[in-house]
Each structure stands twice: as structure tokens, then as C-alpha cells.
């Protein structure tokens, strides 16, 4: 690795040299160098499993490296615990928040600290926290309970927690993965205001456009090694970064062939349903999907998308309305009947819904056809047929796993999604409902998933693609519906982003036309 020469007048707050960390069977970090300058946003880019989080966990004192040195503010520091790391001014905000839902923001921030000692004079601390929050533009009510907060606000609490502990280096582990687009913008503003005030930020991500937008410099990891160390973001293009990250050229616009849309497959009329809290979250949704068509459903998270997907497959009760698949009514019919009618769902939550973590790959791929011939025979599951089927899918979908008997909890996100896709696609569905099928996947895996969806479209399936990634919707869909507060705001066939954006915030398509707000309208 080239030893980078720091230009004069720029101070390295953190410098990591030759960091190596191995896990059984894998070298997560192999002689990695990393520098962080004062007041910069330094992106750490790489595919899933490239070793980004591992490297930062070493810096945050969660892991101990087997080799290498860390220097913080010019002093050698090999941390033994997160506490030592925080004392040295390094704070990490993890992907999964570590907050107590029933306690207030202030209580969460003070948790584990020596002050206050016994008597909790919370109002005093509320003020302190408010001051810090204001300083960095992190708007959150210190007295609010965590459960009342949105995901974006909870993330702010995590950041505040670190700032309150005096962190001047902030490590953000994939901070945007859980955020809505508007929240991402707000987070970026916060990050900028923090660097303006002399804080330094490590931004872990595998999303290229975000890295391009927010970072000053980029370090790219590929399979535990640095492929590019601390280059200026302004000097590179997205394509360059993708190449450094994956090691090959990546097509951004997937090849989409012309397919003539065929018969009506899914027709939904005036569908209404409740969410888990018992509030109505679908307020009369009507839409349709034809054969050989990918129909996108755009919308900000939490506007009824999950409820719609669940109601369509029979997992959630419809209180009103009608769902018809291939001219058969399936409203409030058992899930199994839907599966037999060729309805397939790729759930948003891969680990909580899509798979059984401790069961083998085989057990997971036969989930929908274990009772169908040739795998289900009489009252038995034919294990050799099941094994054969699993091996075929492993080959066909390139699922990287030691054996088909391996528990799926040991699979990476991309491979887990392949298991789900393999299962859902191999059932040759007539209607496929895909909810956020590429969320959290790296560039290579996203490409694979999108290609699979397109090949399904070509083979004549009707696909309803529910996604929060506008870019993905635009490149894959033939037409796009926009959902807002459980209602369809309108349908767009020409990919007019302006209109979609307006509908996502609650303006109906007809209104856009009437008032002449739409730029192309």
C-alpha cells in the first residue's frame, strides 16, 4: 500500500496502519491503512462483507486487531473496549440502534454515565442536551420517549449520545439504510454542520450516490483489502468507484427488453385494511397489473406499502374491497390458496419473515412447495428430492454457501435474498409481489436481483414492485403508481420524476394537472 503523505497544515485525527483482523475462515481486514483528517467526511466504501464494519469496529474498540497500529491525535492507541475508544473521542453509531424504547431521550443519552450520580435532575440535563442538539441541528425533544420517535429521530439520539460523550470522531455505520429520502437529506445537513465545527466523520456505505454527495474523500475496500486509499471524491466518478468496489464494470441501467403486456393478472378494487396498531392504513387502494409487466409502487416508507403486500397474499385481513387474481377472487382467502394460485411474495424483511434462520438452506427453499410433488409425497417430505431441488437452486442462482445443510443465518444479506428469490421464482409465479427486493444489498447483488425480476417479466409474470428507491423503480417499471397515506395518488407511465415526487408528498395527479404545477404537465 502506498504510504500517503499528508499535505502540510492538515491534521490526521486518526491514522490506522496495517490493520489485520481475521474471523474463522475469512480475513476480514488484510493490512488495511486508513487516515481521517480533521473536519472531513471520509467515506468507507465496499460491498457487503468487504470489511468496512470490521475495520471501524476495531477503531471503536469492539474488536481487537491481530496486527497493525492505531494512532489517535498522534498517540498510539490500541483500544481494549468501547469505553476506551469513547474516552479517546471516538464514537460509533451502529446500524441497529441501542436505545431503551420506554425511556426518554435524555435518559437514554445519560445511560451508563457517571453523572448524574443518584438524584436525576433530568430537566438540567434536558437543557444541556438541547444546547448540543441546537449546535449541530439535531432537532429532537429531550423529554420524548424513544418509542414515540421516528427512525430518523432515533438516529439523531444515537448521534447526540456520542456528541454528549465528547466524541470528535463519529463513525456512522450505513446510516442511511433505515432512513426515508427526506430524512437522509436532513442527516447530510447535520453531518455537514458537524464537520464545519471541526468534527471528523467516517461514513460507511455501499451506496455510491450518497458517497458522491456527502464525502470529501473515499477509501474503497474490496474483500478486506484497500483498493483505493483516501482519494478525493471530486476526482472520481461513480463508475470509477463501482469498479474499485466490485473489481469489474457494473451496468447501472439494466437491459430492459420490450415486452407486450398481456392479460390482466392482478386487479385490486377499493381495498381497505388496518395496520398492526389497529389504525386504517389502506384507504381504498385500486390498481392493476398485467402479464409481462413490472408495475412500480412508489411512496415514502410507512404509507401502507407493507400492509398492501400482506393483504394481497392473505396475511392481513381486508376490511373492504376486492382482490382478483386471474379472474378468481382471493380476498381474505388463506395464504396457502394464494400460493397455489401462483401468488408469490418477496417480503421486505428477509430475516423476520422471509426465512427461518436456524433451518438449513434446503428447509428454507422448500417452504412453499414442501407439500407438493415431488418433494411432498403422501404424509412425508422426500428428503432426497428436497436435497436435489436445493442443490439445483444453489447452482442456478449461484447461492454461495458451503453446503445446502448450512443454516441460513450464516448467509450474507445478498445470498439470503438469493435463497428467497430462488424459492419464489422457481415456483413460476403468475403474480409476484416484491417488496424492497434490493434493500441493503451491494451493487453486484442488486444487479443480479434486478436481472431476475426482468427475466420474470419476460417469461410472462405480472410483477408488483414496491420500493422506496425511485431510481430502481424508474429503471425497472413499465408504469408507476404512487401511494400516500394508504391511497393511490395516481399513475405515471412516462417516468416523470417531478410528478412522482409531488404525489409522494400527497398531491393527487389530477390536482397537479389542474393547477399546472407539473413542469411537463
Amino acid at each position, binding site marked *: 500500500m502506498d504510504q500517503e503523505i499528508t499535505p502540510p497544515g492538515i491534521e490526521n485525527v486518526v491514522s490506522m496502519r496495517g490493520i489485520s483482523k481475521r474471523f474463522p*475462515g475469512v480475513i476480514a481486514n488484510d493490512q488495511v491503512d486508513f487516515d481521517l483528517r480533521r473536519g472531513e467526511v471520509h467515506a468507507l466504501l465496499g460491498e457487503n462483507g468487504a470489511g468496512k464494519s470490521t475495520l471501524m469496529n476495531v477503531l471503536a474498540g*469492539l474488536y481487537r486487531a491481530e496486527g497493525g497500529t492505531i494512532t489517535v491525535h498522534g498517540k498510539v492507541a490500541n483500544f481494549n473496549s468501547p469505553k476506551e475508544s469513547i474516552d479517546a473521542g471516538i464514537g460509533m453509531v451502529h446500524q441497529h440502534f441501542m436505545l431503551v424504547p420506554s425511556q426518554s431521550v435524555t435518559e437514554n443519552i445519560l445511560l451508563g454515565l457517571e453523572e448524574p450520580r443518584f438524584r436525576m435532575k433530568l430537566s438540567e440535563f434536558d437543557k444541556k442536551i438541547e444546547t448540543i442538539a441546537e449546535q449541530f441541528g439535531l432537532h429532537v425533544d429531550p423529554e420524548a420517549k424513544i418509542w414515540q420517535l421516528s427512525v430518523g429521530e432515533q438516529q439523531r439520539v444515537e448521534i447526540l449520545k456520542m456528541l454528549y460523550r465528547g466524541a470528535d470522531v463519529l463513525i456512522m455505520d450505513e446510516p442511511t439504510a433505515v432512513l426515508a429520502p427526506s430524512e437522509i437529506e436532513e442527516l447530510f445537513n447535520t453531518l455537514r454542520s458537524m464537520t464545519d465545527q471541526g468534527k471528523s466523520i467516517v461514513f460507511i456505505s455501499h451506496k455510491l450516490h450518497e458517497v458522491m454527495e456527502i464525502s470529501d474523500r473515499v477509501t474503497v475496500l474490496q474483500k478486506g483489502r484497500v483498493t483505493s486509499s483516501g482519494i478525493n471524491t471530486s476526482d472520481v466518478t461513480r463508475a470509477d468507484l463501482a469498479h474499485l468496489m466490485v473489481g469489474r464494470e457494473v451496468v447501472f441501467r439494466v437491459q430492459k427488453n420490450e415486452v407486450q403486456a398481456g392479460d390482466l393478472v392482478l386487479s385490486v378494487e377499493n381495498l381497505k385494511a388496518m395496520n398492526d396498531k389497529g389504525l386504517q392504513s389502506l384507504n381504498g387502494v385500486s390498481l392493476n397489473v398485467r402479464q409481462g409487466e413490472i408495475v412500480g409502487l412508489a411512496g415514502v416508507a410507512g404509507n401502507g406499502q407493507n400492509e398492501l403486500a400482506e393483504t394481497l*397474499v392473505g396475511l392481513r385481513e381486508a376490511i373492504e374491497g376486492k382482490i382478483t387474481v386471474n379472474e378468481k377472487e382471493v380476498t381474505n382467502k388463506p395464504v396457502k390458496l394464494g400460493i397455489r394460485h401462483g401468488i408469490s411474495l418477496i*417480503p421486505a424483511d428477509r430475516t423476520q419473515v422471509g426465512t427461518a434462520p436456524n*433451518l438449513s438452506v434446503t428447509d428454507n427453499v422448500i*417452504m412453499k412447495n*414442501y*407439500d407438493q410433488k415431488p418433494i411432498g409425497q403422501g404424509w412425508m417430505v422426500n428428503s432426497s428430492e428436497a436435497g436435489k431441488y436445493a442443490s439445483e437452486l444453489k447452482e442456478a442462482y449461484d447461492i454461495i454457501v458451503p453446503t445446502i445443510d448450512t443454516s441460513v443465518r450464516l448467509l450474507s444479506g445478498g445470498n439470503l435474498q438469493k435463497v428467497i428469490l430462488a424459492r419464489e421464482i422457481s415456483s413460476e409465479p403468475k403474480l409476484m409481489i416484491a417488496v424492497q427486493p434490493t434493500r441493503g444489498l451491494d451493487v453486484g447483488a442488486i444487479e443480479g436481483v434486478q436481472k431476475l425480476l426482468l427475466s420474470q417479466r419476460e417469461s410472462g409474470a405480472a410483477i408488483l414492485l414496491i420500493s422506496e428507491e425511485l431510481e430502481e423503480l424508474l429503471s425497472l417499471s413499465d408504469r408507476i403508481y404512487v401511494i400516500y397515506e394508504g391511497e393511490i395518488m395516481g399513475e405515471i407511465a412516462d417516468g416523470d420524476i417531478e410528478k412522482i415526487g409531488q404525489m409522494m408528498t400527497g398531491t393527487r395527479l389530477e390536482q397537479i394537472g389542474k393547477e399546472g404545477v407539473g413542469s411537463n404537465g
Partner: protein
Amino acid sequence: MAEINNTKSASSWKFPFRIKIENRVDNPPKWLSPTLSVGAIIIALLIGAIVIWMGGGNPWAAYSHIAKYSLGSVGVLSDTLVKAIPLMLVGLACSIAFRMKLWNIGAEGQFFLGAFGASLVVLLPILPEDAPKWLFIITMAFFGMLFGALWGFIPGLLKARYNVNEIISTLMMNYIAIEWNNYFIYAVWSERGFQMSRMFQRNAWLPRLSDLSTRWPFFSGLTTHFGLVFAVLAAIILWLILSKSKWGYEIRLIGDNPKAAEYAGISIKKNIVLVMMVSGALAGLAGMSEIGGVVHRLQGAISPGYGYTGIIIAWLAKLNPLAVILASILFGALILAGREVQPAGIPTLIQGMIMVTLIASDFFYRNRVTIIRRVED
């Protein structure tokens, strides 16, 4: 965070090696699980030995006595099997429920209700007194299982319908079951004021090996009864169901991730009720075989906590029905010969210790522990 990893070291004292504990990121080898179970038993016995030694006894003598008077001759082995029969059935009852992460703590109560159901056949009576033996066996087994299943059905339905915690409901229903039996023993079927029913007539007894001694003198005096056939058959059938059948797959899937099972179109509520009923039926069969094969009457003290020991057995067998047979024989030996060492105390202590060491051994299943040379910091 993708992986969690703890490394612990004593930083003040520089011992050249340190213990490294990490979460397993691969499937543990197949031999590990049985090895850990055996290891857990050995450690429990060692702890028991220390307690015996501290109490002034000779652990070696105690253990060799237990071994000799439980497995040392055909006669005692037969007695051990008699103790093991109800344990097997109850262990199986717990295994199927635990596979679905349904914590049926009520095998004890289902055992009592099974005994009650079987007694009905003789005492109500359902069959005439001189009905043939085979008919008595079948009918008593049927009623034993029916009443056990009923006692499992109630908490199953409560769980499926109203999400009532089955741990609490099954545990509480144990007390109801015991008092239910007591009512009949004290009030309805009391024989001359004693708290027990009359002795069943001989054609309502399960056949014993000693019954064959007229033809094969070798079997004379052996108490092992027909319940063993029930237990072994049940183990094989349950093994087939759990590892080979569609229903077994559904149970496994629900046990691991109920949401995924629902998404695959499997009815969780139906299976909760069904599994609780099968679990109850197996425990009920244990109760039937105990009064039909050993006690031959309905009375109070028919179970020294079989229903609870079944929980330990299920865990020791790692919920594998065939391993339940082996685990039950071990516990049968411990209960039989342990009583000779000390009526209470040490044998129950060892049982409890096995449970504790078993649960603790799970740590080695989930984590990889290695001793590595300390690298210079």
C-alpha cells in the same frame, strides 16, 4: 453489526495464553451436540461426587452401587426399564412441544389425567369386568391418551385463541389435575376409606415379562411390562413424524420462525392446538401405562414428578425422540438405585445438576472457545 465477537483477557497479569471466545460463524460439527450432552452428565456426576464426599460418603462406592443396582443384572435392569417407561413417554411429550417452542410444563397433569382416563375403563366401568385382556389394553390406552390430549387441548386452545402463556396455564393445570384425581380417590372410588381405588382385576393389567415365565423360565420375576412396547413404538413414530413428515417440517418451521411459517401458509393456531394435544396424549399414555403396568389401581402417589423429569430428559436428548429412550434409561437408573443410596437429596441433586450443566453446555455449542498465545500488545 454483522458479527459479534468478544475477546477477553486479563490485561494486568501477563499469562502467555489467553482464552478467546467467539460466536460460531459456521455450523458446529455433528458430533459436538452428543459430546456436550455426555460431557454435561459427567460434570454433573463429578459435582455430585464432591457433595457426597463433603457429606462424608464415598462417591465411588455410591456410584458403583447405583450402577450395580440399576444395570448390574437382568433383574435390576428390568426394574430400571419399568422406571424408564413413563419417563420415555413423558420425555417424548415434552420433545414434540418443545420442537415448536411450545413450553408444555403440564406433562405431570396430563399424566394424572391419562391415569384417570384409563381407570374409568375399569372403575366406571366402561368395559365389563370379564372383557378380554387385549380389549382392556386398547381401550385403556385410548382413554388414557384421550384424557391427556384433552388436558393439553385446553391450554392449547387458550394459547391459540387468546394468546395465554402456556407455561403458566399448563403449570397451573397440573394442580387441578392432581386435585381432580384426589376427589375421585377420596370420595368416589375410595376403597374402605383408604385414599385409593380398588385393585384392578387381572385382565386389566398390562402383561409383564414374568407372565411368560411358565413358557420361558428365564423371564420369571421380571417386572418390565407392555408399556415398553408403547414407549418404543411412540418414539419411532414420533421420530418419523418430526424428521420425515410434512407435519414435522411445519413444526420445525413454526418453532424457528412463526412469521415465516405464516408467510408459507401454515396455520400456527391449528398447529398449537394439535401439538398440545399430541403432547398431552403421550403424557396421558404414560399415566395409563403406569397404572396398568405397575400400580394396578388409581391412587395419589403415582408419579414422583415424572412430568417434570420429562423436561430434563427432552433437553438431554436434544429433542430427538430416539435419544429420549437412552436418556430415560439413564434417569430410570438414577431414580431406582439412587433411592437406595439416599431416599431424597443426592439423586434429585444429580438430576438438577444435569439440567444445569446441560443448559450451560449450550454455551460451547453457540460459541467457539480457543486458547491462543497472547500476542505482544
